[in-house]
């Protein structure tokens, strides 16, 4: 007898007395239904935003970077802020699927598929910003090291900006492979239930001819585990390298050794907030409350309060170092440009503090962690706060140079700069709407795999095992 047992103290991760077939029904059902009116409305809004983004980018490519309000010292503005913001959001997916897999956190199974999808779309959005920031975007391939007719003049392998090229592209590729290799068996499930010709054909192609053979599953398990092992340091490395873009420079406010862990914690923080925003809607719209339970939401809120507090400690440490270093430029940046409320950009610093450090503390209360409205509201607040953080880091360090004569005029974005940002929202949500409608949003095979350990009906069966005396238990289960 194969004993699967999990403590009764742990909340069931799959509620509603499911069996294997019901799991398939529940998750594949929404894919087979016709899209609702609400879906179309959301999708068209996303596409409209995307179109505005395309137009903004068209302006920027045709007329040049002057379409944006970047100026003399603020060479990085909204564009790089948005880049770091999106990359940060893109960290939750791989964190959930990789690090939590290695840590054997069962609750990841309910949210990992959607979180990985979110990661991929967020990284796609992030990538647009540095690429179009290059100005002459048709030269973008110059960042790749290939033997060329310019010498060959190579890229600078000692530069963090080039490390970023490698880090982001590797991260995107590996996340995509991880996501898709997990999707193959689930596509096969959709394929084998398909009724129409078109579905059979499309899902048949997407499922790569998966049969569910034991040998294939054995290899699939090995693949997932090694990819998780590889992705774990990868997640940490990517935002570390993004932070190197700043930390290896000698700009006051950027030149700090605290950046890598601080950025990684911030990335997880914003990523989980985005997962919350999306999953609260998805579970409601597609009726998946049995798979993404309040327990899942609570677990993610715990991560949010932890990482939010880590980020808070980092902010305070920076302020302390701004004073303790007794470097007047550092002191000016941290204590005037940032922490002084009435400095030109003081509002963004205090916005960041309020959104990232103070408000998430609400999640120390269990009642708040399990309140969907509070969670959704907070997830939006956290992402606004994390956007402020990147804006604070970039703009408050750049707007005043060492030389007062080169201090810049007040920077605020142009229409097309904002349009580009809105466009990436369009891209993100267009992709996410398509994903939510046509892909299994929850990893079906993984849910089935944990069902008999953590489904509520199976847990109830185990309570009689729990009451057994040792002798009885040995008699029953030890052969």
């Amino acid at each position, binding site marked *: 007898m*194969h004993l699967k047992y999990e403590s009764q103290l742990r909340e069931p991760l799959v509620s509603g007395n499911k*069996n*294997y*077939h019901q799991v*398939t029904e529940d998750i594949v059902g929404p894919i087979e239904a016709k899209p609702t009116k609400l879906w179309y409305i959301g999708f068209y809004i996303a596409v409209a935003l995307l179109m505005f983004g395309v137009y903004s980018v068209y302006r920027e490519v045709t007329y040049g970077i002057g379409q944006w309000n970047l100026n003399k010292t603020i060479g990085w503005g909204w564009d790089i802020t948005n880049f770091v913001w999106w990359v940060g959001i893109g960290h939750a997916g791989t964190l959930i699927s990789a690090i939590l897999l290695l840590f054997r956190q069962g609750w990841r199974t309910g949210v990992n598929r959607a979180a990985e999808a979110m990661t991929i779309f967020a990284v796609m959005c992030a990538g647009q910003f540095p690429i179009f920031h290059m100005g002459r975007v048709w030269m973008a391939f110059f960042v790749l*090291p290939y033997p060329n007719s310019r*010498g*060959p*003049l*190579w890229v600078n*392998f*000692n530069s963090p900006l080039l*490390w970023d090229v*490698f*880090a982001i592209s*590797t991260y995107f*590729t*590996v996340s995509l*492979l*991880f996501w898709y*290799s997990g999707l*193959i*068996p689930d596509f*096969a*499930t959709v*394929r*084998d*239930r*398909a009724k129409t010709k078109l579905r*059979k*054909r499309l899902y*048949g*192609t*997407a499922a*790569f*001819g*998966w*049969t*569910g*053979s*034991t*040998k*294939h*599953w*054995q*290899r*699939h*398990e*090995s*693949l997932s*585990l*090694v*990819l998780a092992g*590889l*992705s774990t*340091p990868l997640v940490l490395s990517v935002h570390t390298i993004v932070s*190197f873009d700043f930390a290896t420079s000698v700009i006051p406010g950027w030149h700090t050794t605290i950046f890598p862990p601080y950025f990684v914690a911030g990335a997880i923080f914003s990523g989980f907030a985005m997962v919350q925003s999306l999953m609260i809607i998805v579970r409601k719209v597609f009726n998946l409350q049995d798979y993404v339970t309040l327990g899942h939401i609570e677990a993610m809120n715990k991560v949010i309060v932890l990482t939010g507090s880590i980020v808070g400690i980092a902010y305070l440490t920076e302020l302390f170092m701004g004073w303790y270093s007794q470097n007047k430029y550092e002191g000016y940046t941290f204590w005037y440009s940032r922490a002084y409320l009435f400095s030109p950009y003081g509002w963004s610093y205090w916005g960041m503090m309020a959104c990232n450090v103070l408000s998430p503390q609400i999640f120390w209360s269990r009642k708040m962690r399990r309140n969907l409205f509070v969670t959704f509201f907070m997830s939006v607040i956290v992402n606004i706060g994390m956007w402020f953080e990147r804006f604070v880091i970039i703009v408050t360090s750049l707007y005043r140079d060492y030389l007062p004569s080169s201090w810049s005029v007040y920077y605020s974005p142009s229409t097309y700069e904002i349009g580009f940002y809105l466009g990436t929202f369009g891209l993100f949500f267009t992709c996410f709407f398509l994903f939510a409608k046509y892909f299994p949003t929850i990893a*079906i095979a993984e849910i*089935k*795999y944990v069902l008999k350990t953590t489904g509520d009906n199976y847990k109830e069966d185990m309570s009689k095992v729990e009451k057994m005396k040792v002798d009885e238990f040995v008699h029953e289960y030890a052969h």
Partner: protein
Amino acid sequence: MAKKKFVVACFDDEDVLFPAVKKVRTAGYKIQDVYTPFPVHGLDHALGMRETSLHTAGFIYGITGTTTAISCISWIFTKDWPLNIGGKPHFALPAWIPIMFELTVLFAAVGMVLTFCYLCQLAPFVKKHHFHLRATDDLFVMAIECTDKTNVDDLKSFLSNNGAVETDVQIAEEGWWFGRYDNDEIPFQKSQIVAA
């Protein structure tokens, strides 16, 4: 491609499947494969499969990535075009670690996924015989290869006695072929019929 005759038994619970696998194997039947909707731990051992070496392949791909990164960068920066960057050493190993790491991960991941797809013969437009459509839903499907000596009826009742909820006999292609899932034709079989 060879067509073979299989006795197919479906189980609806992995706890019934395990003893059945054991009994079928001790009775001397050859289990072609067991198709399951999710990875059933220990089933590979119960079927007598060896461990996969995919992770070893992954390690080899990984170190290939590391070596590629360090050899390319060091050749570029010390031999091909030694750039003077602030008078710093040309061979600046610490600065190359990020790229070496990224390429290690990239090579290992891409290589492993391709190897996985090759070993399992997975690709778009590849089609295989599916013994039971519910094998990806809620059934555990065991396919047993028949030889000339196999008594099909005996085997079927043996399987039913061991908990199979459904049994039948299928003649099926073992391998894969290019095909679409909305189309039941098997390209090379058609030509066989014409020749006959």
